[in-house]
């Protein structure tokens, strides 16, 4: 049906109006059929419908005709041609003449062997005789056998290689060597359970390759993806190394905010929830920081239904496939790469100086009619009145150092390949005391095929160990410490107020985490007959995080009399996966058919404990659990998750023009109660490569054109385990001699996954021999059956219950990607790539929202990420209080949540993207990469829990605009100790503190110089030196640390590195 529609579109494109006669006059010698057709069309108005390829085998036409009737004329023209025709209405359909059975020329089987450039046989290569239905698939030794005759053209295609045409001569055994893809369209794209090429992909997938990852000196691969993939939004939560990223593919689908995509490393699903039992200065650590970017070959981001439905109830938020490097046959390659660098925070915020601060404090006492005394105002009465400590400089103003060294050896024969690599990295922070992360990572892979290639086994083991030496919380929170606070008392000890913290003493609270991560995977293939593969993917991951938080008594205010203590966290996650698969590739008619079926068994077990120790004989022994006189368990966790699925895929590629891809998955997951565990998901994708049609002449500027569309569904089961279970959990702290029980949750056995219905239309265009590639996608993802942590009135006894709700969330948007080779000369090339994402998030439906618990949080027709707050109207010139517009339209200094709330704005970016330019001239290459985001956000003074102007906390320069005298116009409320605290709170949550947080950032600048020609004399394979700069500058109107992290989180770093790369 779909095919017919496309044909009709094609036909319509050919129609042109003409005069109408029923006879033809033509006199011609040696003209092509096509010329004859156009003459007929001109004279009669009849249209010809044909495939231009059919005309290649026709003979030139000789004809003399005077006022001949059309049927007679045509029968004469088609005499002796391999074509036939039928007339329907005013259209003449041309088709191949059915070949007479008997006199067909004897076709000899032609055989050949297909290998890659390094001599490894290629298995499963499609070989076709052009213009016929003959096709073959190479066997495990790369051999094929196909019926063809001399003069026929063999067309040989394989994913990841340039296609090849070979004319059959008299020899019958061809050696065929396929070259790795040069044209971006022919490059491999990794998709679920297989590969395809950009040219033939029916789904929406963006790939990032090792080069682009390697040019960023980052620890977490997610950092290297930032702004490079349309539709992928990655925000760093905190500028400290190891901090987690917020990752969203095509917007927030789920009201619950469980929107993490599914991460799969070499076919093994990887945890995305942090393992922390408790947080450190960098918050919760990103599990992906354990994956070593240097060992990553490529990352493929799967977005639409066509690409993700095969992941069933876990594919709704998109899928990120990470493929690690493997050995390649050929000369043994040894590579070293070392870089080192330094960084500082991108931006600091100017705060009040001591005199300005003290003036503000005096005003606060005056405004509140209070007299400062030595307890309530030591800053005014006891401390130095002149000295200004720049706390930011002290706490986050240091230089972070970074060093990484990588080494790898890879190579192998055509049968066996290996790769071994090791990486060491040390990264310190901008905080004092040499805090930082040390990472060691190793990767070992081996691949072996038996002699006839029927059997293949491969394995890769990636191991990393991360040690994070940090402190209990980010020092960015000391930004507002009073500028004249004395760190030390007159005796040289820490100075303490009655109840406060001393920032320097706080530094004694060390928080260390060690994360060990193992990802092991093996794939086994057996090919009994060409085209049929029996495969198994087996994987195992083991991730362990051990944390210690040491709280020496010295770090506490002595007025609190708290002794030394330590906390120990230990979380262990182990997962396994077993996925038997069977795939079959064959040629049918003019197409290639690929079938896949498989099953999946997965398990993840997470166990954790958090124990508090006290009573140590010395602070030096805090790290040792057994030195504690008393250990108290704080919490334990246990979650067993199992997942089971069957899946299948049918892919048909007809003559490289029409592609259909259908996927199906049935899966079951223990995240849901019995009876709700199994679900079915599926998708259909189709593509039409219209540039292959005859109406696009060969050699036109449009070298490639593909229209694709997909529709399907996938699910989201990103929720806690056991939430369906009505159970009681232990309280861990005994009462009256026994450990009590407490209701664990409000159980709901009824819920199941939320479903995302995804639709997409995409257009891929190539111009100028594919030097300019443009991809445009429009997507429309409707997520319904929302799985809500449904907020309940506190009178129920629990804050929420998990349940499905017929609310609908729509994410729709446009994605554009442009890759071009602007200049390609012998010595100089200039490449650009650009991507842009415009996503619109909308809560489409929420039945009875007015009577639901979401009435004050969400608005139908608006984004899920709206931020509500108060409408600031100005500072009352008489009282100095901030004024707000109330719901009834009046203006008042007292406003209430939620009645007086308005929508301040939307936290989802309006659009975002990146622009990369790479210049290479001889051995020098220069690359710069800009990130741009158009968004809104809260200012430095936005948020809960901020100290009002005038309280004992310092302020940024906004406080200079405060009200001081009656009648004065001001931009900030008056200084207050506490009387104006409620007003200040409203001010901090109002439109006054909300605004544009857009930015353009030079994310990466790198300059590389290839020294290979100088080092050849030393028998080195190659060498280069390079320098990179990250976050070199940011153009933004945002006032605060940084528009990406916003508020008072640790901003990202501006860093410079230099490096050396050597190959032996």
């Amino acid at each position, binding site marked *: 049906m779909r095919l017919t529609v496309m044909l009709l579109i094609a036909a319509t494109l050919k129609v042109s109006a003409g005069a109408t006669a029923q006879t033809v006059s033509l006199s011609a010698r040696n003209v092509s059929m096509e010329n004859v057709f156009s003459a007929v069309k001109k004279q009669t108005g009849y249209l010809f419908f044909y495939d231009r390829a059919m005309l290649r085998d026709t003979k030139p036409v000789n004809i003399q005709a005077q006022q001949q009737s059309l049927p007679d004329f045509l029968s004469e023209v088609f005499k002796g041609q391999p074509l036939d025709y039928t007339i329907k209405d005013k259209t003449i359909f041309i088709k191949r003449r059915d070949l007479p059975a008997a006199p067909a020329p004897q076709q000899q089987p032609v055989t050949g062997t297909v290998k890659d450039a390094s001599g490894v046989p290629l298995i499963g290569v499609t070989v076709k005789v052009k213009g016929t239905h003959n096709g073959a698939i190479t066997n495990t030794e790369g051999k094929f056998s196909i019926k063809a005759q001399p003069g026929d053209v063999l067309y040989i295609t394989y994913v990841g290689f340039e296609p090849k045409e070979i004319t059959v001569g008299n020899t019958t055994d061809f050696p065929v060597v396929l070259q790795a893809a040069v044209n971006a369209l022919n490059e491999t794209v990794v998709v679920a359970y297989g590969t395809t090429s950009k040219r033939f992909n029916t789904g929406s997938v963006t790939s990032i390759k090792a080069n682009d990852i390697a040019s960023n000196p980052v620890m977490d691969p997610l950092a290297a993806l930032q702004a490079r993939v349309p539709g992928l939004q990655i925000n760093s939560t905190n500028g400290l190394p190891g901090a987690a990223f917020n990752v969203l593919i095509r917007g927030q689908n789920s009201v619950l905010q469980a929107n993490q995509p599914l991460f799969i490393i070499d076919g093994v699903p990887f945890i995305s929830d942090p393992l922390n039992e408790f947080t450190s200065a960098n918050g919760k650590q990103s599990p992906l920081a354990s994956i070593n970017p240097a060992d990553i070959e490529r990352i493929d981001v799967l977005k639409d239904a066509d690409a993700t439905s095969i992941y069933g109830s876990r594919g709704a938020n998109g899928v990120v496939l990470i493929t690690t490097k493997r050995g390649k046959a050929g000369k043994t390659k040894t590579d070293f790469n070392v870089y080192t660098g330094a960084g500082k925070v991108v931006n600091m915020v100017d705060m009040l100086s001591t005199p300005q601060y003290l003036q503000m404090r005096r005003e606060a006492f005056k405004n509140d009619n209070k007299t400062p*005394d*030595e*307890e*309530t105002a030591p800053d005014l009465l006891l401390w130095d009145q002149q000295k200004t400590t720049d706390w930011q400089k002290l706490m986050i103003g240091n230089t972070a150092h970074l060093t990484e060294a990588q080494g790898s050896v890879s190579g192998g024969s055509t049968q066996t390949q290996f790769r071994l690599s090791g990486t060491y990295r040390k990264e310190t922070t901008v905080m004092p005391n040499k805090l930082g992360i040390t990472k060691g990572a190793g990767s070992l892979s081996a691949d072996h095929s038996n002699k006839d290639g029927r059997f293949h086994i491969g394995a890769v083991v990636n191991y990393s160990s991360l040690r994070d030496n940090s402190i209990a919380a980010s020092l960015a929170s000391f930004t507002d410490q009073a500028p004249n606070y004395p760190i030390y008392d007159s005796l040289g000890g820490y100075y303490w107020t*009655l109840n406060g913290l001393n920032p320097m003493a706080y530094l004694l609270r060390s928080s260390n985490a060690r994360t060990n991560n193992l990802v092991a995977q093996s794939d086994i293939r057996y090919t009994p*007959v060409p085209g049929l593969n029996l495969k198994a993917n087996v994987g195992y991951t083991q991730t362990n995080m051990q944390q210690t938080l040491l709280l020496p008594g010295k770090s506490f205010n*002595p*007025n*609190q*009399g*708290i*002794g030394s*203590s330590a906390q120990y966290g230990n979380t262990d996650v182990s997962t396994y996966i077993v996925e038997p698969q*069977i795939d079959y590739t*064959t040629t049918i008619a003019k197409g290639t058919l690929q*079938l896949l*079926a*498989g099953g999946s*068994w997965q398990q993840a077990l997470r166990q954790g404990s958090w124990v*508090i120790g*006290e009573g140590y004989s010395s602070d030096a022994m805090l790290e040792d659990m057994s030195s504690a006189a008393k250990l108290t368990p704080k919490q334990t966790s*246990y979650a*067993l998750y*199992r997942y089971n699925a*069957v899946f299948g895929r049918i892919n048909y590629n007809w003559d490289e023009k029409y592609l259909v891809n259908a996927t199906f998955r049935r899966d079951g997951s*223990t995240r849901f109660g*019995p009876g709700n565990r*199994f679900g079915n998901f599926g998708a259909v994708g189709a593509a039409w490569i219209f540039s292959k049609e005859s109406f696009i002449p060969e050699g036109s500027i449009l070298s490639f054109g593909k229209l694709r569309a997909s529709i399907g569904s996938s699910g989201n089961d990103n929720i806690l385990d056991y939430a369906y*279970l*009505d*159970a*009681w*959990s232990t*309280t861990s*702290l*005994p*009462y*009256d001699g*026994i450990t*009590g*029980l*407490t209701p664990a949750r409000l159980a709901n056995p009824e819920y199941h996954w939320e479903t995302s219905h995804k639709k997409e239309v995409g257009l891929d265009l190539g111009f100028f021999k594919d030097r300019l590639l443009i991809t445009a996608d429009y997507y429309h993802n409707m997520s319904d059956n929302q799985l809500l942590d449904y907020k309940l*009135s*506190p*009178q*129920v*006894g*629990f*804050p929420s219950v998990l349940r499905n709700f017929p609310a609908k969330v729509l994410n729709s948007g446009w994605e554009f990607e442009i890759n071009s080779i602007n200049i390609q000369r012998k010595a100089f090339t200039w490449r650009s790539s650009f991507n842009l994402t415009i996503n619109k998030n909308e809560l489409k439906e929420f039945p009875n929202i007015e*009577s639901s*618990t979401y009435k004050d949080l969400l608005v139908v027709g608006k984004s899920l990420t709206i931020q509500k707050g108060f409408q600031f109207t100005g500072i009352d010139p008489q009282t100095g209080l901030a004024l707000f517009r109330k719901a009834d339209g009046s203006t008042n200094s007292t406003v209430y*949540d*939620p009645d007086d709330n308005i929508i301040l704005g939307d936290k989802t970016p309006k659009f975002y993207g990146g622009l990369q330019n790479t210049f290479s001239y001889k051995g020098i290459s220069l690359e710069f990469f800009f990130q741009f985001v158009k968004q809104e956000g809260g200012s430095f003074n936005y948020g809960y829990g901020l100290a*009002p102007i005038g309280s*004992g906390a310092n302020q940024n320069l906004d406080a200079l605009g405060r009200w001081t005298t009656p009648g004065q116009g001001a931009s900030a409320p008056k200084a207050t100790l*506490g*009387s104006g*605290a*409620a007003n200040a*709170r409203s001010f901090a949550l109002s439109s006054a503190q909300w605004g544009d947080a857009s930015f353009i950032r030079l994310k990466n600048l790198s300059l590389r110089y290839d020294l290979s020609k100088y080092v050849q004399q030393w028998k080195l394979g190659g060498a280069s030196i390079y320098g990179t700069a990250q976050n070199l500058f940011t153009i933004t109107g945002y006032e605060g640390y940084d528009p990406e992290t916003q508020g008072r989180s640790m901003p990202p770093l501006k860093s410079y590195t230099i490096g050396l790369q050597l190959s032996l």
Partner: protein
Amino acid sequence: MKRIHIFFVLLAISAGAACNKFVDTPLPKNELVSQLVFTDDKTATAAVTGLYTSMNAYNYQFANVLMNFLSAMQADELYYYTTFDNYDVFRENRLVPSSQYVQSMFADQYSFIYHTNACLEGLRNNNGLSPAVKNQLIGESLFMRSFFYFYLVNMYGDVPLITSTDYEKNGIIPRIARSVVYDTIIKNLNESVALLNDAYPTGTRIRPNRAAANALLARIYLYNQQWTLAETSATKVIGDSKYSLLQDLNKVFLANSGEAIFQLQPVNVAFGRNTWEGFTAAPANATAAAVFRLDTLHLISRFETGDLRLANWTGFRKTTAGATYYFPFKYKVRANTAGPVTEYSMVLRLAEQYLVRAEARIQQGKLDDGRADLDAIRVRAGLPKLATTLGKEDLLKAVEKERHLELFTEWGHRWFDLKRTKQSTAVLQPIKGANWQATDTLYPIPVNAISTNPNLTQNEGYK
């Protein structure tokens, strides 16, 4: 084509692989499914006592510092040494529906009520328990639920009355008249009296017994001006030989003190902690400053010379500028890593029963009996007996004063006393000034409750 057939056969085989068995996971190891909880005496008891752990596991919960100290700030007893908005909104009587502790105390208590309701449903639906244990646990749960409702109605006024665990139904229940809540409390407490024993289930006074139910009942009758019933209930407690007014005031708040009717055992006793009240308000050492301070003008100044309560239940320090301030010192242990836990949190104690009975008797005109009860308290505090000439009004004033001085910083007594005797505005307006409004006697209904239950209405003064 044949190969395709093979393919589909294999496909069909693997399709059969999606088996139910694999995804029938075993239950979590750190949880117990509800059906099993109430099938034996031991786990059923653990389910009920789990509530006491939850009530006191962390600081700044309803049952520790919040109710004891914040309500004392709302009245005329306590202040924090410096500006801190979360406390100041109480001290300055400017609560708003979004005030953090207004929300958390509401949520705390309803989560405890859920716990008692879950226990009651489990206990009533299971017949495998021994009758003695079942009665004790039902009586205990009813007592605790009544206790929370007593606080809810006194803090928030009319409140939703939740007596089941059906969250669909419970989420939209509107507020119901205070009198109806009181009726339920009284009915349930009388059931408790019948179900509970005179003896404590495990000997220590950390789980309610019959006397605890009678003591709370006496308080509730007093609040409802049912003087005869209040007197009768209090008499039952006072007449119980287990309880006596301890002559050494420093021993009143110790674990299992003879004055204790119901105490909460501290559970989170890391770092030598005892009670949260002591950990929060007792200074770290003999010279360390105190951060929670008693109101010198309105509380300390009311102590008569020689009042042992001033000497034993308060402490004092001098500021660097030389001014003297007092702090609550009923609980004396901030942290004692050297020894066992010696202090428990007092919930109900005998002195209150004397004061309840004194007031109930005076209200009924039994002035001599009432004065005798007051004298019992005064003599214990080292003070002379009251003049026998005092009339009803003077004696009621004496009750008010003794309650203030005896029960300061305990469980909101002062705040509730002012309110139930309609003295709040008269006493507090002169102290709090312009901040005071008559409507401040009730807390606002928390914003998160209003916004999640469309059937809730807001109290006057917070709209």
